């Protein structure tokens, strides 16, 4: 327990007031208060984007976005969850796409409505430059779009706030896929290794290990000098 373990804060979950320990994340605090998550919880590790949350602090007009599993509670937080942001991910066959600007417009023409207002960037819990992601797509710069959106979790907070009704995470995903397929290309070292395995390069070593007795195997394991 931290030195803050006795300190309690007041939060409002969908309008209802709760008093919760100060050293909890929003997610833990909501569970402490008795909420049971059926939606809006996933990996609990800041990686899946399921727990998208919006909140305001007492006395501030700012509407902020966060991940419930990562953000610590603060006194006077008014919280609501967005477990799902409605968006259509277009069906496309990656093999049929041309890696250029027109592809973004074909799949997601609403990006032409981008106002460069930066609301998406303000909403992002991962501190990504979301506006730059959409703008790079408008310019046809697949590489920049892909790289800037690398840490995107598709949590949907940008999509629910965008005044032009764009879904930025779909743009990032399309860019990353095209980047991998058309710009980076096939991973030679993986293909090489697969071929080596199929050619039986590692068969002898593998068979030796399979035939070894248990104490010898344990000894090999205990004296290993490389992890995993």
């Amino acid at each position, binding site marked *: 327990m931290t030195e803050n373990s006795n300190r309690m804060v007041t939060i409002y979950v969908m309008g209802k007031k709760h008093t919760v320990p100060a050293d909890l994340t929003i997610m833990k605090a909501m569970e402490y208060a008795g909420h049971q998550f059926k939606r809006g919880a996933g990996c609990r590790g800041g990686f899946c984007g399921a727990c998208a949350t919006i909140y305001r602090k007492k006395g501030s007009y700012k509407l902020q976005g966060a991940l419930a599993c990562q953000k610590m509670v603060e006194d006077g937080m008014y919280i609501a969850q967005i477990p799902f942001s409605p968006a259509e991910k277009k069906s496309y066959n990656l093999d049929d796409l041309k890696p*250029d*600007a*027109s592809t973004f417009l074909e799949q997601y023409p609403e990006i*032409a409505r*981008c*106002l*460069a*207002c*930066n609301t998406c*960037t*303000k909403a992002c819990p991962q501190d990504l430059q979301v*506006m*730059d992601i959409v*703008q790079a797509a*408008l*310019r*046809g710069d697949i590489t920049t779009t892909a790289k800037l959106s690398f840490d995107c979790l598709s949590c949907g907070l940008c999509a629910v706030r965008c*005044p032009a009704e764009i879904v930025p995470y779909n743009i990032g995903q399309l860019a990353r896929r095209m980047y991998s397929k058309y710009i980076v290309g096939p991973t030679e070292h993986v293909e090489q290794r697969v071929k080596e395995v199929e050619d039986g390069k590692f068969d002898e070593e593998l068979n030796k290990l399979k035939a070894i007795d248990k104490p010898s195997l344990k000894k090999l394991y205990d004296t290993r000098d490389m992890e995993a």
Partner: protein
Amino acid sequence: MNIAYYPGCTLKTTAKEFDISTKAAAKALGINLVELSRWNCCGTVHALAKDDVMHHLAPLRNLLRVEEAQQSGIVDEKKVVALCAMCYNTLKRSNQAFNADADKAGKVRESMNNEANVYSGQVEVEHLLETLRTQGWDKVQARVKKPLKGLKVAPYYGCLLLRPRGIGVDNADNPRIFEDLLVSLGAEVVDFGYKQKCCGSYNTVHMVDVVADLSNRILSQAQAAGADVVATACPLCEYNLGNRQIEVTKKYPKFYSIPIVYFTQLMALAFGLGEDETALGMNKPDPRPLLREKGLI
């Protein structure tokens, strides 16, 4: 001289020939156009409603980038050169609105408050034609290696380069700037009555028929005046007068094709630059057969 350059989305995607030829022609004149980093779509067209703040963010954010570039020494002045007439108009008008209305400027600054810097309103928006005029047509002429002799060019201004009053690169009633450029390139200027008539603009999306009518009128006038080729400064005009000739021919079978080029392509051609710089293979319809006929390529 390092000047900030704002290409706009279209020059990077469907009108690459405009971007390519611009950079080449400017370089040949000793104008180093430095493309702004992190520029965003200008959000054309200018938002006219008096209460609008949101639609000014996109253009003004670009002007902030210009200031930042100047402050970090990447460019020499708080000036940006635009090529696409629509981008030029949108950037300039938003700049004017920002400077004319302190209340609106305050709201814009507030909305851009997570930028590292605050826009001062002091950036000057210029079209390349203005830059050339300021430098002097004699400088353009001095750089010409292959004068466009015998090429009859009809300069098509379109709307947003000249209008509204106070924004235009020249007098809206009797502009000369485009003609002066063409003369300095050695071309024969063909004046025609519809050089400022609207091409139909964004109606090309859903009212193609109307654009076909307007194009037909404009191009037929240019042809009647004896033009070999029409020169323009706007990718939307180029599309409506160029690509849309397919629709014009369908509706008006007697119409015959005339090539449309960007003025920077003519500059690059006159400066003796190669086909990678003039990028003439990207225009529709193809201007090369005519230019070959004239002995210019």
